[in-house]
């Protein structure tokens, strides 16, 4: 398993009036291809900032980040767009679906712009929405909407799937089913999945757990025995 992500001394400062906020401080770590990574930390620990940098949506104030050996932190706007388009998939806490497109069309939206998309039927079936693909977001439950969001992210066949609190807006049972789906994507499609969460219980399912506090990576450890999502309780 080769290294897919290498972060070296990443830092991000925000200027809030006269105060400088250090959202990210000297974060360095590596993520291997095919790993299920959980980035764990309380609110304000810098995990979202880190995810944005990994996703090519934001630039660090210092440090570099490489994906498959290419420095993504040096990308200009055009290359960052290409990176997001071909290499990364995003799943958000609040799904961010297009209200006037059906579930399937939301997924098609992503495949339209990818170079090597996955088969839509297969995706819809695998996320358990084969029967509901013609429904609009307003006709779907929160869990179903998050499944569409995951389907949309993976349909582009990205190397890396970044998930920002994917269960944050869901009840326990639905949250577990989403984690199961993400695990399935990780195993069956061999995608590297990075989940950021403040829920410590989820960490137990990760191959790698990166803990953050006050913008710093305080722990980066491999989990020898990750548990199945169905065993998680919170």
């Amino acid at each position, binding site marked *: 398993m080769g290294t897919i992500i290498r972060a070296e001394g990443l830092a991000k400062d925000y200027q809030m009036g006269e105060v400088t906020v250090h959202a990210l401080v000297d974060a360095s770590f590596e993520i291997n291809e095919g790993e299920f990574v959980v980035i764990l930390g309380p609110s304000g620990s810098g995990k979202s900032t880190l995810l*944005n940098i990994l996703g090519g*949506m934001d630039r660090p104030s210092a440090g570099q980040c490489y994906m498959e050996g290419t420095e993504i932190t040096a990308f200009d706007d055009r290359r960052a767009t290409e990176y997001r388009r*071909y290499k990364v998939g995003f799943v958000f806490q609040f799904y961010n679906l297009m209200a006037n497109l059906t579930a399937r069309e939301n997924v098609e939206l992503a495949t339209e712009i990818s170079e090597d998309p996955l088969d839509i039927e297969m995706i819809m079936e695998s996320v358990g929405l084969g029967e509901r693909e013609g429904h609009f977001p*307003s006709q779907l439950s929160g869990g179903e909407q998050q499944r569409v969001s995951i389907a949309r992210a993976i349909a582009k066949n990205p190397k890396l799937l970044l998930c920002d609190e994917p269960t944050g807006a869901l009840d326990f049972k639905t949250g577990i089913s989403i984690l199961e789906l993400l695990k399935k994507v990780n195993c069956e499609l061999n995608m590297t999945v990075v989940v950021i969460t403040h829920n410590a219980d989820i960490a137990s399912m990760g191959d790698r757990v990166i803990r953050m506090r006050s913008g710093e990576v305080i722990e980066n450890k491999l989990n020898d025995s990750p548990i199945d999502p169905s065993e998680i309780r919170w």
Partner: protein
Amino acid sequence: MKTIDKRLFRMISDTKGQFAAVSVVLAVGLIFFMSMRVSAANMTQGMYSFYDRFSFADISCEVEQVSSRQIRMIEAIDGIAAAEGRVTGTVPLLDGGRDGGSGDVAGDARARVKIVTYGNGVSSINKLMLESGSWPEAGRREVLAIRQLADARGIRPGDSVRLQIGGQGMDFYVAGIASSPEFVYLLDPEQGIMPDNRNYGIIYMDEALGQPLLGLPGAYNEVLMLESPGLSAEQRDRMADEIERQLGRYGSHGAVLQENQISNAMMREEINQLNRMAMALPIVFLLIAAMILAMMLGRMVKKDRQPIGIMKGLGYSSAQVIAHYVKYTLLVAAAGGAAGASLGMWLAGWMTSYYMEFFNLPDLGRDLDYRYILAAVLIAGGFCVVAGLAGTRGVVRVLPTESMTVDSPKAGKRVLLERVRPVWRSLSFSGKMAVKNVFRNKKRALFILMGVTVTFGMMAFVVAMPSMISDMMGDGLKEFQPMDYNVSFRQPVPERVLNEIPHIVDDVQAIEGKAESPFRLSSGNHEIALTMVGLEKSTIFYNFRDKAGRRHQIPETGLLVSDYVAKKLRVGVGDKVRVHSYISDSEDSWMEVRGIVYQAMGVNAYMDKGAMAAEYLSPGTINGFFMNSDDPEAMAKLKELPAVSSVSSLESISETFQEYTQVMNAMIFFMLILSGVLGFAIVYNATIISIGERETEFSSLRVLGFSRGEIFRLILRENNIITVGGLLAGLPVANILLRYSSEVFSTEQYTMHLRAGPAEYALGLGATVVFIVFAQAATYRKIQKLDFMAALKNRA
């Protein structure tokens, strides 16, 4: 400043582009309103005070000859307060003014003046306003020149003018420059609807000097009358009948009431047009500004659910929150209102001066009427408050708790086009998305569609205006009356006189006699005074066509009438009209309307020349002719003939047309810009609102890997679908606008026939598209500045 008001100013700062765009639309509406309304009021005031102070005649009547004694009898008619006689006659102006001698030959050759006498001592009707110089001294060959002529030719007191009277050149000393209420709009009756002050003017002289010169010693050929105040309509009718009966004996050409007097009629028509436009145009702009505002506010309230919830949670009432947002619209009203009212006032001042100059109205002082400013403020405030209330009604529905939760997705629906499977399948995915987005917010789509429609309609209307003018004075006139010269004699002459003309003028290619005489046509209660033209059946100098383009020939019996005449008399082909000659003693007769022909300028009826001469002149006579000739001296040669009273040439009308075209082009450019501002504001604001509403959606697309350009193209595609719809809808709208305007703006002097062909539509379309492209390009900045991370994070 209250904190809530600080928030208001920050809201304005965040939306400054939209705030400015909607304020500009509002300001343009008010500029139209103020400038037109105020200049119309100024002109009305100026006109009536000029009329009052200089006793503009209520009735005037041209006659063959009438004596002082007979005028005193007219004065005795019940309802007449005063009557005066004067002598008028049109003569060639051979030379005069500092620029007079150096002008081109054709210009000088066609120059004429109307000599108008004033009474010994002081005239009490149509008094003259001496603008510079002094009154002519009795017993000397001294005259006054009308201001328009003096300005155009550079004539100053102390100069002299040379007139041709009775075949002789005579010099007159210009003692002064004067104005008169009857010639504020100075029009050569032979030459059309535009003043040509260099070649037509008025020379005033004492009647003791004028009477013998014009061959009427001790007599008059025109009677001016003032009515007694407070006459009822019935008394007026009786009085008019009596005047016509009495003056009929002296060869009356028909009494002309003040409202029909040409200068006054043109003036009133201009004021009416201004007033009509002062209502119609601003309403379009104000309504659109209000709609944009309502949409903006609706969007703001929706976006601000959380802050509204917080405010309500803190204890603000719905009314207070609504007031907070309505203040936004009031500030738009203040900005747009202040700009609109002040620019409108400034423009009104400029327009009034321009009109006063154009109509030769002396500036007798004008008051700044603050009521119009108040009206503008109230109109702007009213429209904005209503728009604000309409846009913020959603505030009431926001509950403090509800506002803290995340929006559930809007219900998605299939669009109608999806049911048309073959069409839907043929669309690309992004095409499908664009169509779906168009139908997502139908109201907004409809608003943009309407904006594009109105803009296109206005553009097509504006670019069609030159074709209308060309119709009246340019190519249209040449096609309708393909003649080089139109010549009138002082008296009817035997037709054989025409045989002499080729001996006087070289290179005569065609010549035809005409009979022309004033008539009154009536049908039921409707009547119209006009000039009847008698022509040869197979005349080559007129091309008669009806609106459908079918050719018409002069009938053996009966009349051809212009479409305006038919409309005024409410008659159709086959109907009979009563025909009354003003100069012949023959009994009224009934004639059949055999055809209705399209005529852009003037009001006429046409009949067979032979029949007309036999019935109303003397058999075998004519009183003028039409001629085509390449002789460059033709005009001068014809004017030298003592029997000729006037010569007009198509060339001179075309020259006036060229001058007018320049003014027209400036106006068209101005109107195009204003129409464009409207289209720009609508498309810009609606698109910005749309982008604002879909910030999260576009941010998701950015995260998915869409570039800014691709998102912008997505919006463009949506707007393009609506724009195409708007342009298609704009075609019939433009057509309706053209027809409506043709109807509204047609007058007795000219029939407007606004029409747009493929070229006008293409031009209107091109101009519309240019402004829409500008508007869309301006929205690209918003996409550039889209902070997609913030949009995605700030959901809870």
